[in-house]
Every structure is written in C-alpha cells, then in structure tokens.
C-alpha cells in the first residue's frame, strides 16, 4: 500500500513547478521576490500538511501572507521604536 494523497511537500513542489513559466516571464527583481514568497510558504509546510485542506494552494498563499504580515509587524515595531527615540 502506498500514499493515497501526495504530501504537502510534493504538492508544494508541483505548484512551484507549475509557476515556472510565469517566473521565467518576470523581471529578475520580480523573480527574486517570487522566490522569497515561495521560500516563506515553504517554512509552513508542516502546518499545511496538518491542515489537510482540500485546496493546499490556498494554505500556501496564506503562509506567504503570514510571513508578509510578520514582516510588516517587524517593520512597524522598528518605525515606532525610531519615532519614540526622536521624541
């Protein structure tokens, strides 16, 4: 007996491969940004596997959004820190 469903990692790699042509058409700077997004989604593969969502790409997109929001929160904290020092 084998797996009845591909693992989250396999699905992720398939999705990444499916966007290969999209990536190729992007400018170099945009390609790097896209790679960053996929790298951020890769950090949450274990959670994506646990979620067992019917549409795993939605979970990958949410993982990307999660990392982006964490970055926004980090930057906000830094801005507030700088502003508080200036006062």
């Amino acid at each position: 007996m084998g797996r009845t469903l591909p693992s989250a990692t396999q699905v992720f790699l398939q999705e990444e491969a499916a966007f290969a042509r999209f990536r190729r058409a992007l400018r170099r700077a945009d390609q790097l940004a896209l790679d960053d997004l996929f790298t951020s989604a890769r950090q949450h593969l274990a959670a994506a596997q646990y979620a067992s969502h019917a549409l795993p790409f939605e979970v990958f997109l949410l993982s990307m959004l999660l990392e982006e929001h964490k970055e926004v929160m980090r930057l906000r904290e830094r801005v507030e820190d700088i502003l508080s020092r200036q006062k």
Partner: protein
Amino acid sequence: MITSIEPKAGSWILLVGPRSLNSTMLTAIARLGERCSLRVLDGGNRFNAYTVARAARGRRDILEHITVSRAFTCYQVLSLLESTPSTQAPFVVLDLLNTFYDESVQIGERKRLLRSCLAHLERLAVPSAPRGAEAAEGGLPRGGATRRPPRLVAGGVVSVHPPAVPSQAAIELLSLLQASAVDTFFAQPAASALEPMRLF
C-alpha cells in the same frame, strides 16, 4: 479530450487511454459530482483528492457527493466490488486493470477474478429499486441542497491504462474487459504544448 462522463443507465462504458487520461477523469468526476452522488472505486491508487477538489472549486457539497474506495490487489478489487451495494448512484472505476497486471498472480487466477469483477460491474450498473425519499432524490442528503439535481440512475464508467510493459496476458485481460463493455472509447495522449525556445 474528455471533459465530462455520462454513465448510461443499466450499462457501463470502458475508457482506454494513457495515464495522462487520469487527470481529465478526475475533472470529469468532479463535474459529475455537481449533479449527483457517485461512487469511485479506485483500482490503481489514481484518485487524487486535490485534483478533484480543485476541479470542484473547493465546494464541499460537491465533494460530499463523491465516495471513494480503494483496492491495492486484484483480490481486493473483487472484494471491493462484491461489497459495493447496488444503488441509483453511478460508479466510476479508475484504472481497473492496474492490479491485474501483477505477474506474481497466475494469469488463470487473474482472468477468473476479472470475470467475477465483470459480473459485479453488470450488477452495479443496474439501478436498484428506490427505497424511501433519500433514494428518490438520488442519494442526496435531505434538506442539504436547495436545488434538486436531475435524477440520475446507475450506470458506470471504467477506465484502464495499457501496461507499462506490454504482454500477452495484458492484451487478453483488456479484450475480456472490452467484450463486456457496452462501448469502448480509446483516448489518445494529448499533444504536448510547444515549449518556447530557451535563450540560456
């Protein structure tokens, strides 16, 4: 290219094609699931729920119409078909012959099992007499759907893929299957999209 499958009441049809046929079969299963309950009997571990979920656009009501059972040996295929009751829901068998290509089982034994399977396919294709309101609604849960789908009676679709290594036994099994099917369709592999030339 196959975009939808229409089971014929009281009979089953055979689809013979390459392994790439599987993804279109799964899309067709999702389309059929929009209209009625159906049973998927997976003989070759071909049912990818993610592909079906994507084709169904993640709609739970469609996915809940689809029941999947899997078999991993030719003995399990027969056991699965034996244990599947006749209802009004149509059935789809994915890659029926996959486990029958196993050469560790004697060809005579495989043929015997396949003949028994064919008898069960005939049984499943014939819709059983409706029992109660649920049966009259084609197996839909009561109060679950606002729009009642058109009533579909049983019938089935069986898909098979040619073996990776062609053999006389495989040809015999396939011809046995073809002889029992009402219609046989041969799907050709889709021509691959032209890749743009790489500059680097």
